[in-house]
């Protein structure tokens, strides 16, 4: 189940087959209420005690950070360093905006405290911790009414003892206080990102802890006795036990999008043989994510609660492994207007759900992408949301005509302009996303989901030079479904910066062993058999003294010549990304990463067919960039059967969306119900 901002989605799988799904309104004050409602409905199909596991994802963490609804939180820092989260990297994220703002820290300065202690870069203690001071601090925290405390001391990734001691003293003095240590949450070099991460974690800790406790109670009350697993922000090896989630809630930050991407990867390439671009376009934004070998690319850092949603650098860094996706200000509600040079501009401003596009007839009169899609013939005014909502063509026309006046264009040209421009915006962003990661986007299979994704897939893929598109079935609950396709797993990291030539391998091996044991224990606790736990090692490596490291894969662990092994892997990865590498430059490892994962769930998702049904339900005139307006066949998605093929131009309608297939393309339905489109 996936708890979104508006809806809570549920999917029930029995013996590897999807038996039922459901959608209920989210109950923000206590989201476990909606879960109980939804689950109770699914219990018509299965007995609670027969359910082996419940997998769960949520936007609660992201929302708490954006809406600043977390706990009253304090920070404990090394003396002289309480301003780390205000000082940041001293960089403006937009060169030209004189009026930009930095995100307000989650902990006000008056609740940022310093303790006397100092550890040096090599882990040695320079100034011992003053424990009496910590006890005095505990009394102060009580007076301030603080509910959670983040502890972030310098170089604690290397020597966590002071942080642990601070944690022990505070817990003893203030039972019931939530304490989060940076050396637990994100033991990585770089005090700004690490402090920001542990603060975010502490800030949401009480909220998530209480919620998960309540959820467990409700599920137990309904008769569940299976494992409760929580979807993490990564996707690949990305489901963890509830205890882990209760300690590291910040790892749940992007669980919804991660599950969506895993789902896209599942449908497009279950065997992971093809690289995938997952493209999800909704009402206000589009998201794109690259998937390789069945696993979404993972970034080391994420930005939460950006001041400007689409501007890199305007948020709080959270350094945990997280799905690497780009969010673009382009959705069905994106507003079209005349830009500063007399040219059409679309987004990132959006009408949102209320009043929505002009054609929603809810009082909106601004022309939007959805209005253009309607006027171009992509959307059926009588079959929007399966006919639950009638679209007002006249209102769309009036809004679009006003824009056309400003641009000096006719109605159809204007609608086409909006469609083309928003497609170009999305294609450009996706192209840059791939280039910055050294990937060739043209080789990818394009998987379109979301309400507007399938409508725009054809145009965006065409701009990107992509030749194969996949429209998976039941896109409406893709995230909830994705959670069931993800393997249980967890990633742990620890920074031990050292030149490769003089790395203390004994210390490194011990650290890796400890991380692997810790991760394995977490998986075993959630019911994964120990022998099925896979361990993978990776390291962040860079040229000595130079810039950001890159993550290189090292297989199952360190061999007998670890320096050579890391060097070779670094060489391979570096050359793949950058073409060549300098000779004679020393390499250094910054951070070691251990991933533990259980087996992939097996799912049987064969499409049930209804023989004899006529899928083609009519025809209408639809606009295409290639041909202008042409007579186009319309199909009912639910009546298409595996093996059906047809050629574009075509439009395929389903409840949640509409698939647009351009002239000359061939479409076929594969055995699991994907609509696969290939450009000849």
């Amino acid at each position, binding site marked *: 189940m996936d708890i979104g901002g508006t809806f809570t989605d549920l999917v029930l799988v029995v013996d590897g087959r999807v038996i039922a799904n459901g959608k209920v309104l989210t109950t923000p004050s206590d989201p476990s209420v909606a879960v109980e409602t939804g689950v109770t409905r699914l219990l018509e199909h299965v007995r609670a005690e027969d359910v082996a596991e419940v997998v769960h994802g949520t936007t609660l963490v992201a929302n708490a950070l954006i809406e600043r609804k977390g706990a009253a939180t304090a920070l404990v820092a090394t003396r002289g360093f309480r301003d780390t989260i205000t000082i940041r990297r001293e960089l403006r994220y937009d060169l030209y905006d004189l009026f930009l703002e930095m995100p307000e820290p989650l902990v006000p300065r008056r609740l940022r405290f310093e303790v006397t202690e100092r550890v040096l870069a090599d882990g040695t203690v320079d100034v011992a911790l003053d424990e009496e001071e910590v006890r005095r601090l505990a009394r102060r925290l009580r007076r301030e009414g603080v509910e959670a405390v983040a502890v972030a001391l310098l170089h604690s990734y290397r020597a966590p003892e002071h942080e642990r001691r601070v944690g022990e003293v505070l817990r003893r003095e203030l039972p019931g206080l939530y304490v989060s240590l940076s050396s637990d949450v994100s033991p990585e070099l770089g005090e*700004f990102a690490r402090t920001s991460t542990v603060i975010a974690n502490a800030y949401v800790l009480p909220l998530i802890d209480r919620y998960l406790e309540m959820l467990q109670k409700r599920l137990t009350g309904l008769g569940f006795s299976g494992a409760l697993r929580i979807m993490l922000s990564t996707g690949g090896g990305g489901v963890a036990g509830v205890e882990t989630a209760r300690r590291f809630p910040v790892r749940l930050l992007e669980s919804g999008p991660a599950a969506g991407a895993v789902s896209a990867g599942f449908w497009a390439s279950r065997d992971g043989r093809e690289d995938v671009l997952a493209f999800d376009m909704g009402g206000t934004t589009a998201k794109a994510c690259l998937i390789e070998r069945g696993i979404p690319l993972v970034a080391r850092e994420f930005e939460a609660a950006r001041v400007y949603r689409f501007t890199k650098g305007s948020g709080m860094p959270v350094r945990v492994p997280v799905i690497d996706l780009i969010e673009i200000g382009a959705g069905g509600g994106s507003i079209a207007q005349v830009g500063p*040079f007399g040219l059409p501009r679309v987004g990132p401003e959006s009408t949102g759900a209320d009043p929505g596009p002009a054609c929603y007839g809810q009082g909106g009169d601004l022309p939007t992408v959805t209005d253009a899609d309607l006027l171009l013939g992509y959307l059926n005014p009588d079959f929007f949301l399966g006919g639950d909502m009638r679209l007002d063509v006249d209102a769309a026309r009036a809004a679009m005509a006003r824009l056309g006046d400003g641009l000096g264009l006719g109605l159809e040209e204007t609608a086409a302009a909006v469609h083309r421009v928003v497609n170009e*915006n999305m294609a450009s962003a996706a192209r840059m996303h791939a280039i910055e990661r050294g990937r060739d986007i043209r080789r990818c299979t394009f998987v379109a989901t979301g309400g507007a994704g399938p409508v725009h897939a054809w145009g965006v893929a065409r701009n990107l030079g992509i030749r194969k598109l996949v429209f998976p079935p039941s896109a409406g609950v893709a995230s909830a479904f994705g959670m069931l396709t993800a393997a249980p797993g967890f990633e742990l990291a620890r920074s031990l910066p050292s030149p490769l030539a003089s790395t203390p391998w004994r210390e490194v091996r011990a650290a890796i062993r400890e991380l692997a044991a810790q991760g394995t224990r977490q998986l075993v606790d959630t019911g994964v058999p120990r022998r099925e736990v896979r361990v993978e090692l990776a390291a962040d490596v860079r040229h000595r003294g130079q810039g950001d490291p890159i993550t290189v894969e090292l297989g199952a662990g360190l061999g007998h010549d670890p320096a050579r092994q890391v060097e070779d892997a670094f060489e391979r990865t570096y050359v793949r990304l950058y073409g060549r590498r300098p000779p004679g430059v020393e390499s250094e490892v910054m951070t070691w990463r251990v991933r533990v994962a259980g087996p992939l769930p097996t799912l049987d998702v064969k499409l049930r067919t209804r023989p004899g049904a006529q899928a083609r339900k009519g025809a209408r005139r639809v606009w295409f960039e290639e041909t202008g307006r042409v007579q186009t066949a319309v199909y009912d998605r639910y009546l298409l059967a595996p093996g059906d093929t047809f050629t574009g131009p075509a439009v395929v309608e389903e409840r949640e969306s509409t698939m647009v297939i351009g002239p000359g393309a061939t479409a076929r339905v594969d055995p699991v119900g994907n609509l696969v489109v290939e450009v000849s």
Partner: protein
Amino acid sequence: MSATSNRRRNASSGSGAASSVRGRGRRASAPAIDPVTLEILWSRLVTVTNEQAAALQRTSFTPIVRESGDLSAAVFDARGRMLAQAVTGTPGHINSLATSMVHFLAEFPPESLVPGDILITNDPWKTSGQLNDLSVVTPVFRDGRLVGFFGNCCHAMDIGGRGLSADAHEVFEEGLYIPMMKLYEAGEPNQDLLKILAGNVRAPFEVLGDVHAQVAGNQVGADRLLQYLDDFGLPDLEALGDEICDRSERALRDAIRRLPDGDYRKVIHTDGIDEPIRIECCVKVRGDEILVDYTGSSPQVDRGMNVVLNYTAAYTSYALKCAISPEVPHNDGSFRPVSTWAPEGSILNPTPPVAVAARHIVGHFLPHAIFGALVKVIPERVLAEGAGNIWLTTVRGTGSNRFVTVFFAAGGTGARPTKDGLSTTSFPSGIATAPVEVIETTSPLVVRRKELRRDSGGPGRFRGGLGQAIEVEVRTGEPFVVSSLADRMRFVAEGYAGGKPGAAGSFKTSLGTRPNPKLSQALPAGTRFTLELPGGGGFFDPTTRDPEAVARDVAEGLVSPAAALRDYGVRVSPTGHVLGLERRRRRTSRGAAGPSPRRRT
């Protein structure tokens, strides 16, 4: 960098800039492109330059290029008009690329170029003002016909000489000079040049690697451009170039026309090394054109702080764009209505062979001078003076441990007419600073504190950003040498419209001395030094600041109760409760919210 080349530069980008650039303006009667196609062509062309820049940035070996985007990349048409520039990290490169193309074409006319040629130079006067910036230009041919150029300029990790300091007296001391020449000739690399380059820099592999990355970046751009022309069935970039330049020019002229005509003047000073440096600027608005005239500024100096005219023009153009037309992109058209003039031999238009390496410590003040001039006409669109240049501090071990390490730090920015300034944030440069843990991992430095300086933000209805104090110890147990390209130790950041100045910067040692950090200081083993970075100026009279905002600043420890009373006329308890208002506030004190801030979604 002969006197001749300097004269030529003046002819094309100095006083004659406005007229000579207009002289290369549009040809009549290009076939019109419909607005939708134009929007798509234009935005795709910008993406092509972003791809070019990303390819270069990703493969560079130089951290400041990779992480802070200290580079520029652009596409030009066959006539050398710049049509689009990638969005990258620092303003210093803004129109210097466009101007350098004029020089490249003067040296190598289009008819002299063949496929496979690639051009290079680091002439500070013809490009972006220091030898470390290497410019590489690649002509693009289609069916044997020249259709355009890709150019980029990238900060090299090293170029020999004294490194990035103000120490030199002549440019010859600052490193290797590469005159405008061919890096590749018909596909063959110029091995002699590469050998000379490798033999004159401290990190030959990285520097050559970056040059190759520059070549590769342009190649990515060229490949994409040819594909682009095919995709859209365009014969060349001419018609598109006309549209892009004309529309940009028109938009900028419209923006300028909204300013009242007049001469808007401002004089500011920076500390300099031996003598203060005067920057005098007059922004002359005439109809739909602007001339920024720096007559009256200090003469050129005997240290590496001279700012070549290209760099002067870059920061001038940057400041005007921020204040007048943030939405108009940089291209040949948007340069036409603006010209920059500084007298030859002045610090803002020096003559060779003066030293120029640390030109940013003067150049970064230019936007403050321009905003100071414009605050009289558009107070709602500028920010008050800030800390100025980012401080670059170099520490060198002089005992048996011969290390060298460099780190950056920023003070506060000026307040805005609708909001407080930003604390510890660089303006105008766009360089990220390193975390303390990284500094300590890669050097023997230990940072004892790095914290905001209370009361350093200039008082105002909107307060200036705070500076910071950084206390550093060197753990070698040996003597060391430290220098810092610091400023605003004498001349503080002024407030605007009644706002008060920010705190001055300082450099102190644990010996109790306050030496001039711009010159290298030898310090004995065990000495600690403290950098105190300046705060930004305030905006509007501080007695009109919302008393609750003053109280919040006190509660947060950003303003002391004493300063709250002295500067703002508000009595505040140490815990941040308003206890009373001074009589002088009664007239002015209201809810002090200005117009609502500009916001993007």
